[in-house]
């Protein structure tokens, strides 16, 4: 994206538009850990040389750095997905007490419908719980404007400001009119212990300040242009925020709307005014009844939405059903293809061996979570970042005689697996942890991390040495193995499982999407195939079964990793690597 162009229309995603708005507002420091659907915010900001952008080690670190920079005097931004903000809850809750000096915007992207997440929590409650103002744009163009307003609110009211997007806003694209960057002069950092040292005495005073601030923010909410009444036919009045506004405007073009660009704190007078004008008051919102509860708490007569609407994302065709007080219909996703690990994925080799050895696997968050799906079905738990390490400890404590393995990716291990590993060493638990080091943060689209030795701008930095780190944590046996070397991998796994003590096996091979090397693809000898179906168990997208039960090898998808060759018991799949090497030598 071109820097500094003004008054120009660009087709921008919600994430890119938000980043562009922050850039125009003079943001200086921006921190995030990648997570769908939020990743492109920092990727966009890193494209501007004026912005000091970073992939932080995890979200807690990201928010602390951004808060420190805001207190230190420059406009700052934090971005993550909803579950990422959970990791940063500790600094977030007290950031409301200390406030800021220059503006701090905390962007959170929720994922209703769980397109790429482990839960569909509704982060609007965090604003209520954390006593922070929350803006919620409905579209990319609004994301571009709202983030600039968020900086004004942040500095005027001395508070971090939450901006919430959902997948359908973050990954929508719209023509957005961009502007130029307005530089904001850095403020100096003033030592102010009463404000920045949150010991009980100071904290208590700041809590009182926070409550007063919320009252001021309530008054702001009454007069801000981000909340507005669009008066139409008053037989139906719809209170709505976020992307649901866009769906509802099309479904009920003639109705009256109260569009809440700021769902917290709620503008009570405006809501009462609106409720007084309309015959029927209906709240339309995705996930939890956040607005509905707030409106009801004011004593206003609002219709109760059927509980089935708390689950899943809204679609435009749902709006009339909500208005008609009907439950959510069952939606048929039959026939949609499920995602699988790519052809050539090094993880597939690891899970094949784990499955073959009938090991129970505590999993983690990453592409490798896809190994949970049948036919591979070789990953048995997945809760949150870092739990591959800690869940295996818990499982072992509950079932001391069983064989458990913990699996975690390189980026996830650095994010929050290290603490679990130290815990396992400190509390003397046996076990085997596999770090699947594919040299990138693959699931979110190939972001660098401390173990890759490259920063967000692609510049070299000091590489974190995973094996040295594990040894420094007190793990005595640390093996590094190429997962394509199936025999070594299996032999090492068995040996470590039989031993006492805690061991780490680092399976190291770069993600196929990173290297994209195509090797000669195997030859299929139909006459040798006994239709045993073992090669189909590896869940490779290049392999399928034809009508007669023989194998179809998709030559466009296959990249020649040869795992199918290695698992075929009847030599019906034959490697062409050597043949090719022979020709070229």
């Amino acid at each position: 994206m071109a820097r500094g162009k003004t008054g120009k229309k660009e087709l921008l995603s919600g994430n890119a538009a938000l980043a562009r708005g922050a850039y125009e507002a003079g943001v200086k420091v921006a921190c995030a850990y990648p997570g769908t659907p939020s990743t492109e915010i920092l990727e966009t900001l890193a494209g501007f040389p004026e912005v000091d952008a970073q992939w932080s080690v995890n979200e807690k670190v990201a928010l602390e750095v951004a808060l420190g920079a805001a207190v230190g005097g420059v406009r700052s931004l934090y971005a993550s997905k909803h579950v990422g903000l959970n990791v940063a809850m500790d600094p977030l809750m007290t950031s409301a007490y200390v406030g800021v000096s220059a503006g701090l915007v905390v962007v959170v992207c929720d994922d209703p419908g769980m397109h790429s997440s482990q839960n569909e929590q509704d982060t609007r409650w965090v604003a209520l719980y954390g006593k922070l103002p929350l803006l919620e744009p409905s579209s990319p163009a609004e994301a571009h404007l709202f983030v600039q307003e968020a900086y004004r609110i942040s500095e005027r009211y001395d508070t971090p400001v939450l901006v919430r997007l959902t997948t359908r806003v973050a990954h929508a694209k719209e023509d957005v009119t961009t502007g130029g960057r307005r530089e904001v002069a850095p403020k100096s950092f003033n030592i102010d212990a009463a404000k920045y040292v949150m010991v009980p005495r100071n904290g208590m005073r700041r809590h009182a300040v926070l409550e007063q601030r919320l009252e001021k923010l309530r008054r702001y909410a009454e007069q801000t242009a981000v909340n507005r009444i669009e008066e139409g036919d008053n037989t139906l009045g719809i209170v709505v925020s976020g992307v649901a506004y866009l769906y509802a405007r099309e479904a009920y073009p003639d109705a009256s709307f109260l569009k809440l660009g700021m769902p917290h704190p709620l503008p009570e007078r405006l809501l009462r005014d609106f409720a007084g004008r309309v015959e029927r008051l209906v709240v339309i919102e995705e996930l939890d009844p956040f607005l509905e509860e707030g409106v009801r708490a004011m004593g206003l007569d609002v219709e109760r939405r059927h509980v089935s609407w708390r689950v899943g994302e809204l679609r435009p065709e749902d709006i009339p059903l909500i208005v008609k007080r009907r439950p959510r219909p069952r939606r048929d996703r039959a026939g949609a293809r499920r995602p699988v690990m790519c052809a050539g994925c090094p993880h597939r080799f690891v899970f094949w061996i784990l499955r073959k050895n009938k090991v129970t696997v505590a999993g983690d968050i990453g592409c490798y979570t896809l190994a949970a799906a049948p036919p591979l079905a070789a990953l048995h738990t997945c809760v949150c970042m870092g739990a591959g390490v800690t869940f295996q400890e818990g499982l072992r404590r509950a079932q001391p005689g069983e064989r458990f393995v913990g699996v975690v990716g390189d980026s996830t291990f650095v994010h929050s697996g290290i603490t679990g590993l130290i815990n396992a060493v400190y509390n003397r638990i046996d076990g085997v942890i596999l770090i699947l080091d594919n040299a990138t943060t693959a699931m979110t689209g190939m972001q660098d991390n401390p173990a890759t030795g490259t920063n967000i701008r692609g510049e070299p930095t000091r590489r974190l040495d995973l094996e040295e780190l594990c040894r420094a944590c007190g793990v005595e046996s640390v093996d590094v193995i190429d997962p394509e070397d199936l025999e070594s991998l299996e032999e090492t796994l068995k040996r470590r499982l039989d031993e006492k003590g805690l061991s780490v096996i680092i399976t190291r091979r770069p993600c196929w999407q990173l290297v994209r090397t195509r090797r000669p693809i195997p030859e299929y000898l139909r006459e040798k195939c006994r239709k045993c179906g073992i090669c189909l168990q590896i869940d490779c997208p290049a392999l399928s079964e034809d009508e007669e039960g023989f194998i179809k090898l998709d030559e466009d998808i296959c990249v020649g990793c040869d795992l199918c060759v290695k698992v075929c018991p009847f030599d019906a799949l034959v490697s062409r690597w050597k043949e090719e090497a022979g020709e070229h030598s």
Partner: protein
Amino acid sequence: MSTAEIYSVLFCGIGGQGVLKAADILGEAAMDAGWHVMKSEVHGMSQRGGSVESHLRFGSGVFSPLIACGKVDFLVPFDGAEARRLRQCLARRGIDLGVYIERALGEVSHKRFLNTWMLGVLSVFLPIDESVWLSALEKVLRYALKENRQAFVAGRWAAKQNGTRQGRRHGGT
């Protein structure tokens, strides 16, 4: 509100077929033609072989980035199974361009130009000048621009040859 001025296009296929890229090209073209554009897509799993759809709407009075089921004016599928799955979302007078997939695969020099060939077909049905389309291709595509342009022009020619009534109307009269 009249929806007469809104064009709702649903692109679908599987990861790696260029579904999102095709929608981006239409988005840029529609924007350059002076329309308000709203597009929706879901990233994250797109490179993992899963189903991928992208909704693109342009015109006057567009709000929603998603097309309500039953309101798709043009279904642009790159995969037969995905086309069958999503055909139910077509409007009564909506047009399914899936009938062109086979011909497209026979004509393109490589599968990866299927998306621009199909865009060529779609272009005949939309109020956007060819020159605007070609500059949108240039804006969005980083490589193989020549091959993509050829595929686009070939698809456009094929559709013109058939006339714009050749897309299969769905569930109509």
